[in-house]
């Protein structure tokens, strides 16, 4: 905290009162794009920091998942408030809602493919992924699951609506696959978490 010196405070004639109309004409910033870049870069800085802090890349993956989980359990409230959507009636419905979630929070629409015959597993395919927009993995980071935060977000968010899911990356553009594929598997319903008297 800076304490302004009294001489400075008193030098009234130097004070420059800021006018609100200083914004330049011409090129305005595209808010949506900038915010998406802010998120991308911030996430990148976080991963870089984690790589610095942990010696083991598996620990970085775990930490990313954990942070994603914490984000997911809050994000689901935001999602439900924005979309007004109700309870999922089956896992296909869940898949579509997850897709909508990606649309809202990351501005992308992954395609839903590769349903398992039992209908308890599907894949989300990303052709472009804002998280990895400016990213290249160096050779010593091949174990790094750069986007692992997403698996955590899904786990956390689904847990809050009484669903246990697991997810993992089967393809990754950062590892020279043509798409990024996130596999999502339904594990079980969390019946006990529903308080008495609620549906």
């Amino acid at each position, binding site marked *: 905290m800076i304490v302004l010196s009294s001489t400075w405070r008193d030098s009234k004639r130097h004070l420059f009162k*800021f006018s609100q109309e200083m*914004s330049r004409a011409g090129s305005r910033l595209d808010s949506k794009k900038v*915010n*998406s870049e802010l*998120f991308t870069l*911030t996430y990148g800085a976080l991963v*870089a920091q984690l790589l610095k802090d942990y010696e083991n890349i598996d620990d970085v993956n775990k930490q990313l998942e954990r942070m994603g989980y914490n*984000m997911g359990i809050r994000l689901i409230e935001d999602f439900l408030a*924005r979309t007004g959507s109700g309870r999922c009636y089956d896992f296909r419905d869940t898949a579509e809602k997850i897709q909508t979630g990606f649309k809202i929070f990351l*501005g992308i629409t992954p395609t839903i493919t590769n349903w398992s015959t039992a209908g308890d597993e599907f894949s989300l395919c990303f052709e472009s992924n804002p998280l990895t927009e400016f990213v290249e993995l160096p050779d010593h980071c091949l174990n790094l699951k750069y986007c692992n935060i997403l698996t955590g977000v899904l786990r956390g968010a689904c847990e809050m609506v009484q669903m246990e899911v697991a997810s993992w990356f089967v393809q990754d553009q950062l590892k020279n696959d043509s798409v990024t594929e996130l596999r999502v598997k339904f594990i079980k319903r969390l019946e006990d978490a529903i308080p008495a008297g609620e549906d």
Partner: protein
Amino acid sequence: MKQQGLDSKADPTGEGVQSLFEYLHAEMVTYVLSKADNDKEEELSRLEWMGYSVGYRIIERLSREWSRFKDELDIIKFICTDFWSTLYHKQIDNLRTNHHGIYMLQDNEFRLLANIGSKGSKQYLRESPRLLAFSCGLLRGSLANLGAVSTVTAEISALPSCIFHIKVQRM
């Protein structure tokens, strides 16, 4: 189809991405605090450094399409208006300077504090500074890439208002 109905009204303004950033930011703060060695003095330099690297990079992309800044004050004005309103919804409310490299940027409702307390609430005043470290770094990084090497500190007296002090180093 129902799906498309949801999609079209989903987030026309990019608010979703903004709140995603807020969740991520909260997680980063928690992480940095968990890594800090002694809990008496909060060790926020990791956050500040992450902010710095983000600021440095983001300004490079933003200022590409911008005309050249006349001087230091011009840079600060850009930060206060366009840059700030793009990232944090609103402009800086008040800018003061002594014209010798010290600037005071006051935001009466800083976005990262807005949900912590309103109308001068003091309840979380002690914990609030940790929410500003990243933004201090962001400012410092942005300024650095615009050619103004500086130190940035922040001060909160009543939520959700805060003041960023920028001290530009003169060569």
